[in-house]
């Protein structure tokens, strides 16, 4: 049940932590491992994936469904954002075109991907092709040259048109984004019915994937009100002092422990939520409705 290990958090507060996972690193809960507990999937594809025993079977299910709608590729992203800042990006790349995720990571495309930006901003699907992405221009803060590299890489990998949309998790900090891709160069082939079918399939896949063991995100254990998920009593007391704006010394006084001890707990909390400083920690505590 343990989450996967993440690489060390970035040193600066405004950097993004990035990771690519595949089926072998993610799928933990299937019918074979958890027979009854998670069987109640609403969508058909989620139930099928759950029942499938092997990676090859799951690939067959997803690829068949993709082809039936008219797509070749699919990427599923999990984004942790604070305001406009992308704190963490994880891509489930099992169905990504060869070479794309390498470029996505190494070229830093995650930071300027206009499709992801759209999906985080709007609650309806973006229907795109490379010409339309180019015409819309770079997202604020991105260099036009970087967008041009992004478009060249996407074209080279066979991502030439597609649909991208975001799925909001009402509780917690993660947004999920699903992107369907095709080698067809013009988006005109993507009729409304294709959009709807991709949306339905995307929701189904989202349902299945959100039950898997993702690399530990701050709120991986679900909504926590009052007491934060997985916090020990003393951690909770320290956090609740911290978010009321108390300094380490004041917390030590209030909780009758040494400053050294407080410092230790604050460090543990920062590590737990993968943040660099106490302001971020306080913000997360607010979002997670810790009281």
């Amino acid at each position, binding site marked *: 049940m343990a989450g996967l290990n993440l690489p060390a958090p970035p040193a600066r507060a405004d950097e993004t932590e990035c990771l690519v996972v595949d089926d072998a690193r993610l799928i933990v809960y299937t019918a074979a491992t958890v027979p009854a507990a998670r069987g109640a999937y*609403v969508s058909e594809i989620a139930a099928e994936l759950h029942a499938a025993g092997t990676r090859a079977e799951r690939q067959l299910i997803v690829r068949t469904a993709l082809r039936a709608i008219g797509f070749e590729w699919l990427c599923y992203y999990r984004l942790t954002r604070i*305001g406009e800042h992308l704190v963490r990006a994880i891509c489930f790349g099992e169905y990504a075109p060869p070479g794309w995720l390498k470029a996505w990571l190494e070229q830093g495309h995650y930071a300027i991907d206009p499709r992801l930006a759209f999906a985080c901003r709007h609650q309806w699907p973006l229907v795109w092709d490379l010409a339309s992405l180019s015409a819309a221009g770079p997202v604020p803060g991105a260099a036009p040259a970087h967008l041009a590299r992004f478009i060249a890489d996407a074209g080279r990998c066979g991502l030439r048109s597609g649909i991208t949309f975001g799925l909001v998790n*009402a509780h917690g900090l993660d947004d999920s984004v699903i992107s369907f891709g095709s080698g067809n160069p013009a988006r005109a082939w993507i009729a409304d019915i294709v959009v709807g079918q991709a949306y339905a399939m995307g929701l189904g896949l989202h349902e299945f994937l959100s039950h898997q063991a993702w690399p530990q995100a701050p709120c991986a254990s679900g909504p926590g009100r009052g007491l934060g998920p997985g916090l020990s009593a003393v951690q909770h007391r320290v956090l609740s002092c911290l978010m009321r704006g108390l300094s380490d010394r004041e917390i030590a006084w209030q909780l009758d422990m040494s400053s050294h001890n407080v410092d230790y707990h604050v460090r543990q909390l920062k590590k737990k939520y993968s943040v660099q400083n106490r302001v971020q920690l306080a913000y997360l505590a607010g979002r997670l409705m810790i009281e």
Partner: protein
Amino acid sequence: MNYFSALAPVIETPGEAGFAARSAALAQTARTARAAEVAAPPSDPAAPEVVWYDERDLTLDLRNERSGAQSYVARELAAARTHEERVRVLSSTLRIIGFCTLAYVTMQVIDDHVKRAFFLKSYTPAQFRGHYFTQRYYEIDPRAAIGRSCLQPVVWDLALLQEKSQRGARNPRTAHFLQEMESDGMRSGVMFGMPVPHTNLQVLISFTSSNPRREWISSSTLGQALALGLSIHQFASGYTRTIARQSCAIELSEMQQSILSCLAAGLSDKEIALRLHTTVHNVDYHLRLLRKRYDVANRTQLAYMAGRMWLV
């Protein structure tokens, strides 16, 4: 705990009392000549207030290529010159797909309860309007139970709902609800929903047909229905934003919003100033205003407030 509470983030909304007046003003801003049609306060104090609006309140901003129309239906709607024309486009699309009614509702959820429902009235028959909320049927709706919290589209017919409702504890309200559905000719359909991020709003989209068997809803019919629902969602987004703004008593300037967002991300004053192309002095000034506004002593507390109130 009802279905919607599991879906929607809950935030405190100060200044509750003035809301009815503000929601009346809401439609005024969209269409100055017309007053909003706010239903009379229901006798059941737990029932949400239902606010009706229609096509005239919806506009789509097509100036921005990024958020421009993404579907054929949305483009057709955008091209329509009058709201009557939009109603015709949508009604005929609905009929072509095979459905009779369409409900598009934005619910405001506060403390796990649906407080208000904003109802697009153009496509729902008059006799069924509002009962879903005035009778609080959403609390016992078996469709809602099926799709609990994952927002999955539910394809249903009355036989399926009957079966689902009999599995749990029998509730006379459920039987009444299903009877009403039957007599209103709502015998099968598709329902799905989504939360509106960073708000306490939750959208519910429902299509119904008089066909008694759900088998007529193929995967392509489902696809068409979802696409139509999403197009309406896009079209209604301006109205939704207005509702969201009205329900959040405190409005921040763009600069304060950006500063707060940087602060929550853990940046120092100097880093914030650099990123927003302004001076440290100016950042400090705005942070002082923000601290005063939220009555907090320091930036850690401010960050907590920003998270708690979903300000960023």
